[in-house]
């Protein structure tokens, strides 16, 4: 759907990281994303995961990366944004009683909405959250209300020193959901075979029209925006 959503709240929550609350949204599933027209001379939309939803209010957590997210960060409360909503398929539900949610950097936001949903289904969650450094950390306290949280920072300034892989040492991972940079996902999926990951790809449209985000999977090409962004670990093939 195309919707003009109004900015209900917009604040910085960590280094270069913003929490944006948009009002007027239809219901989203955890793992879905929206595609936002950012202000200024940016031709393409910018895709962001849903970090939480309550009624018609969605939360997006994003990091300023280039000029589009920079422009987005300057949007004020009360302004409206043109959004394509309810994009992609969400995470699948699971029969496991306990799962791991593994996130790196701005891959973490969608896991929050997922954790809440799993909780409702009485599934226990352990979160393993990786950041560069303490200044980048966000949402940790919120996650702690939902289950065990393990934090890993590359420089050791908060939690364990190292990547999420360090955080997973000594754990037995039955099933997991992971979102984060490709190198992290590649490493994870080479070790842990049963789970789902959400991928990012450069997008022309975000709703299946352009084939811009199409990746090879075990059986056939799939569009990250349409058949994804969540994929089963077993169907992934990584470019070498």
């Amino acid at each position, binding site marked *: *759907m*195309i919707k003009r959503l109004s900015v209900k709240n917009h604040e910085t929550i960590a280094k270069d990281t913003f929490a944006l609350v948009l009002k007027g949204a239809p219901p989203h599933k955890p793992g879905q994303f929206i595609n936002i*027209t950012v202000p200024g*001379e*940016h*031709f*393409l*939309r910018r895709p962001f995961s849903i970090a939480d939803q309550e009624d018609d209010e969605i939360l997006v957590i994003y990091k300023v990366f280039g000029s589009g997210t920079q422009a987005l960060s300057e949007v004020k409360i009360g302004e409206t944004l043109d959004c*394509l909503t309810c994009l992609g398929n969400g995470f699948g539900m699971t029969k496991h009683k306990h799962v791991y949610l593994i996130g790196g950097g701005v891959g973490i936001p969608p896991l929050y909405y997922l954790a809440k949903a799993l909780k409702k289904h009485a599934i226990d969650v352990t979160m393993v959250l990786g950041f560069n450094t303490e200044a980048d950390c966000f949402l940790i306290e919120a996650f702690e209300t939902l289950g065990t949280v393990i934090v890993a920072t590359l420089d050791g300034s908060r939690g364990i020193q190292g990547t999420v892989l360090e955080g997973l040492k000594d754990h037995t991972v039955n099933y997991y959901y992971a979102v984060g940079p490709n190198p992290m996902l590649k490493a994870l999926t080479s070790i842990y075979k049963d789970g789902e990951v959400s991928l990012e*790809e*450069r*997008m*022309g*449209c975000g*709703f*299946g*029209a*352009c*084939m*811009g*985000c*199409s*990746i*090879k999977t075990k059986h056939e*090409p799939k569009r990250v925006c*349409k058949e994804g962004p969540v994929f089963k670990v077993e169907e992934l093939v990584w*470019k070498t």
Partner: protein
Amino acid sequence: MENLKVTLPGMVLQNPIMPASGTFGFGFDFVDYYDINILGSIMTKAITQHPRYGNAVPRIAEVTSGMLNAIGLQNLGVEEAVNAIFPRLPSIYRHKVIANVSGSTVEEYVAVIKALNKVDQIGAYEINISCPNIKEGGMAFSVDETMASYVTKACKAVSEKPIYVKLSPNVTDIVKIAKAVEAAGADAITLINTLLGMRIDVKTRKPVLNNIYGGLSGPAIKPVALKMVYQVYRNVSIPIIGMGGIMTKEDVVEFMMAGASAVAIGTGNLVDPMICHTIVHELESYISSLGFEKIEALVGVAHG
């Protein structure tokens, strides 16, 4: 809506607005947004003889007022198109469509056309001899008169429907190529495919696209497209379908005044899925505000 009717070889369109090939699939991704039956026609995603994955990602780069793509003609191949896609198409779209035929060899174009001939809903073929994103064939056919003429003749020989030939703007003299395909029997010309371009990511110090080069589309290319439509209109007699950067009703009118009998909207669909819907609904009152009753009267008026 009667005033918006336009005629193309083998087809009567309720209005001149079509989505351009490769930016609309076969329409299935748009039915959540609007009833696509309002479209004059649909130019389908490229169809090749065999399934193609296309180029490795990243395939998309943003540029000022446009984008680069290096999809590389990803599609399921003609067999799947005939057996699985076209049979489902009438459920979402009831008018004739224009099938975009692509290939790396003349034999491939011919094979695709032969296989598609039996599909009733196809009103015409758009022969894409101008895709900049495949190494073999593709654009090579459109930059050389002899080759362009040769492919056109071969397609014409086996086709049971009109042949529209889609030309590349990456040439020294578009008129020469246009005349060559006209002489070879093309029923219409579609203009323009993408311009070749690139972006470099200053942080990684590498081209953004895995393919290095990509096709530039969107408003950035509109003046180039318009000039080619205008120029070709002066030099050929067959109809022209104009495209390149159309985003508004004004753009549609500019292309038709330059000489296009109908237009296609490509990249616009990607950033605004409702764009064709919006324009179709604004068009009649807009042309009337410019003093035109029937849209066909716009075609070529800028030539005086």
